């Protein structure tokens, strides 16, 4: 009890809180706190609904499909437990697709990091037409995938490949029909690399833009101070830029991983997974079995094998971001 209360005077804080409520008879819902909270939840609601309806529900549905014998033409599906996973596990092609998916992911990530970082640094420099160039570099990312991939298909054509004709004119390879004439989509190793190259070409501008956003957030004073202290370019990059933009880097990396692992269109349009499954990746296999062959259950099970690949990565990235924030 305060001195004031002891002396019979009003308790100032209690009066401030309780008196108006009593005077107007308002419930908690009408208080400013409640209004603030309601407004906050209202703003969050679209995002939460979006996640629940467009991500959560399909994910749960695909989990159900994966443990059922659902097929595209039958309205009734039976629960079959882990049968679809076992069937996928026993498929020779599944393991080829799994291996190709991992190679695809790792090689593409390396090249996208290198090219994305280089491009971001280039775009940081001041030069005439910088805004125009910034607009142009995102074109591969914004072009409809069908159009850009079909252009690449022509460039990789076994007979009319512009790449081969240029190399041939430069004397680096022989003429059409010779042993040294590369068949980009016909030789197993080359075909996978050709698909990865198109994926890298399409999405490295995204990496560059993400990095660029991070770089521009680094205060110039910090970099200038480091320069004055005699730090080299790479020391500044490693010890100042990377730690400061780490959360952005991680989010970019995460997006990129998801885009790469789930990229069906590049491989499907270029090779359909051939020659002889040399470019088959999990999304293509899932599509061929689930939709084209009509076996939704097994298609879903194969697609869900992407989750164990993605989940540890997601966990590590989010944990690292949290640590850096602390």
């Amino acid at each position, binding site marked *: 009890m305060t001195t004031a209360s002891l002396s019979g005077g009003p308790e100032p804080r209690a009066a401030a809180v309780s008196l108006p409520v009593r005077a107007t008879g308002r419930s908690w819902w009408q208080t400013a706190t409640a209004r603030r909270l309601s407004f906050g939840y209202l703003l969050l609601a679209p995002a939460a609904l979006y996640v629940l309806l467009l991500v959560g529900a399909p994910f749960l549905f695909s989990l159900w499909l994966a443990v059922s014998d659902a097929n595209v033409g039958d309205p009734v599906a039976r629960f079959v437990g882990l049968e679809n996973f076992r069937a996928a596990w026993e498929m020779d092609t599944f393991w080829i697709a799994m291996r190709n998916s991992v190679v695809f992911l790792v090689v593409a990530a390396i090249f996208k990091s290198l090219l994305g970082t280089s491009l971001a640094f280039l775009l940081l420099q001041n030069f005439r037409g910088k805004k125009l160039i910034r607009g142009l570099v995102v074109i591969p990312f914004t072009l409809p995938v069908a159009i850009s991939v079909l252009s690449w298909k022509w460039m990789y054509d076994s007979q009319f490949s512009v790449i081969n004709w240029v190399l041939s004119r430069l004397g680096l390879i022989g003429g059409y029909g010779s042993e040294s004439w590369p068949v980009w989509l016909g030789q197993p190793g080359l075909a996978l690399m050709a698909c990865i190259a198109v994926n890298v070409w399409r999405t490295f501008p995204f990496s560059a833009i993400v990095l660029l956003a991070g770089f521009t957030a680094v205060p110039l004073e910090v970099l200038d101070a480091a320069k004055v202290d005699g730090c080299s370019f790479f020391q500044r990059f490693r010890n100042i830029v990377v730690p400061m933009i780490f959360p952005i880097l991680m989010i970019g990396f995460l997006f990129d991983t998801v885009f790469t692992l789930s990229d069906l269109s590049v491989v499907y349009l270029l090779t359909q997974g051939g020659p*002889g499954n040399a470019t088959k990746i999990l999304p293509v296999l899932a599509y061929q079995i689930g939709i084209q062959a009509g076996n939704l259950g097994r298609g879903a099970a194969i697609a869900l094998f992407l989750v164990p690949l993605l989940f540890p990565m997601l966990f590590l990235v989010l944990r690292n971001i949290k640590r850096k924030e602390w």
Partner: protein
Amino acid sequence: MSDTPHPVSAQPVKSRRQFLRTAGGGLAGASLLTMLDAKKAPAQIKGTTLRILQWSHFIPAYDSWFDSKFTKEWGDKMGVKVRVDHIPHLELPARMAAEYAAGAGHDIIMNGSSILTRLYYKSLVDISDIYDGIGKKGGGWIPSAGPLVQVEGRTYGIPMFYILLPMLWRKDLFDANNLKAPDTWELARVAARTLKAKGHPTGIQFSQCADANLNWRSLLFSFGGAEADASGNNILIDSKETREALRFAKALFDEGMTPEVFSWDDASDNRFLASGVGCWIHDAISAYRTTEDTNPDVFKNTHIALEPAGPGGKRVSTSAANVYMIWKFSKNQPAAKEFLTHFMSEFKEGMIQSRGYNMPYLLGDAKKPMPIIGADAKMAILQDFPPLVAFYGYPGPFTTPIQEVVNLFVLPDMFTRVARGQAIEDVMKWGVGEYRRIFSKHKSA
């Protein structure tokens, strides 16, 4: 009252409701058939909309004719608004799955190459009545037509046309080298061996595309090989004929092709022929038409041969089937049935508009001379193909396991593996294993 039991009729006694249902159904069916026959629009289809989904035809002029003339004229006559949507043929299975899941979409949907009757038949309208009627009127269906659309004795689709993949060969190159026309696979191989050395190799897709699925099956079946028995339940791929076909394909690749065939898609061989490099290809006549449009000199010397015979003289031409189906959820089934009947009665016009690309399932339409191809000396040989035509799964029907085998390119992969140097027995072990795994999975399901 006597003790003798009352006589019981052998016929089951029909209730009044059953009688009315049977009589009403019969009356409605008879009315529809009469109206179809008289080419009058049934009253209930007037003022309705009919939605058709089909592929983008390889002969674009066909689509122009179909969309703006054929369907329009029929629609005007019947008082039906017809809307036709086109998508690439490879997207048809995905669209079909989407429409099925949504329970809404088009009234008529086309299947191209991948015939999904057995997957969807529970959701398709039983059109046995019009199938039989069309067949009767058109002189009967070719034998391979029925298994494409029939499940458990009922018919769920109308075979619209199939696409042949004959041998297209360069007569000038053959003549200059004293080579015989490629009437057998062996002669084709000798020609490829001879002409590759002179800068004119041959090519068949060793890749994952529709033509690879079709071409290698033609070779396999002509060699006496088979995929499944007539029931569609038993695999026949593990045979000495399959081994022979694989051995032959390896020799054909080594002697007469270049590695570019590993990267080919469905259009690569068209370009290969049109460029003047290829000595022969085994492809649809779109390749012939492409050559006509882009390289008249090569076209002049490009001839068409009958399906080459295998070592035993057998000829089987695996063709790409195309089928129309009607969804059960369609709210305009009478118009859809009416349209399909009309479409088949005007088949010859469609064949003309497709420049001879659409081949007939009806024996009446297959009589010589056929439009376009019957009037062209080089194409006339195509008229001899109907008895040789087969589809995936031969001699069995196009079942769901075969559908998966086709979509996973198991057979072309077997040929690809052999061409790349794997031992035939290893390839057989892998391929037969894949067939068995797929078939057993479907059997257990």
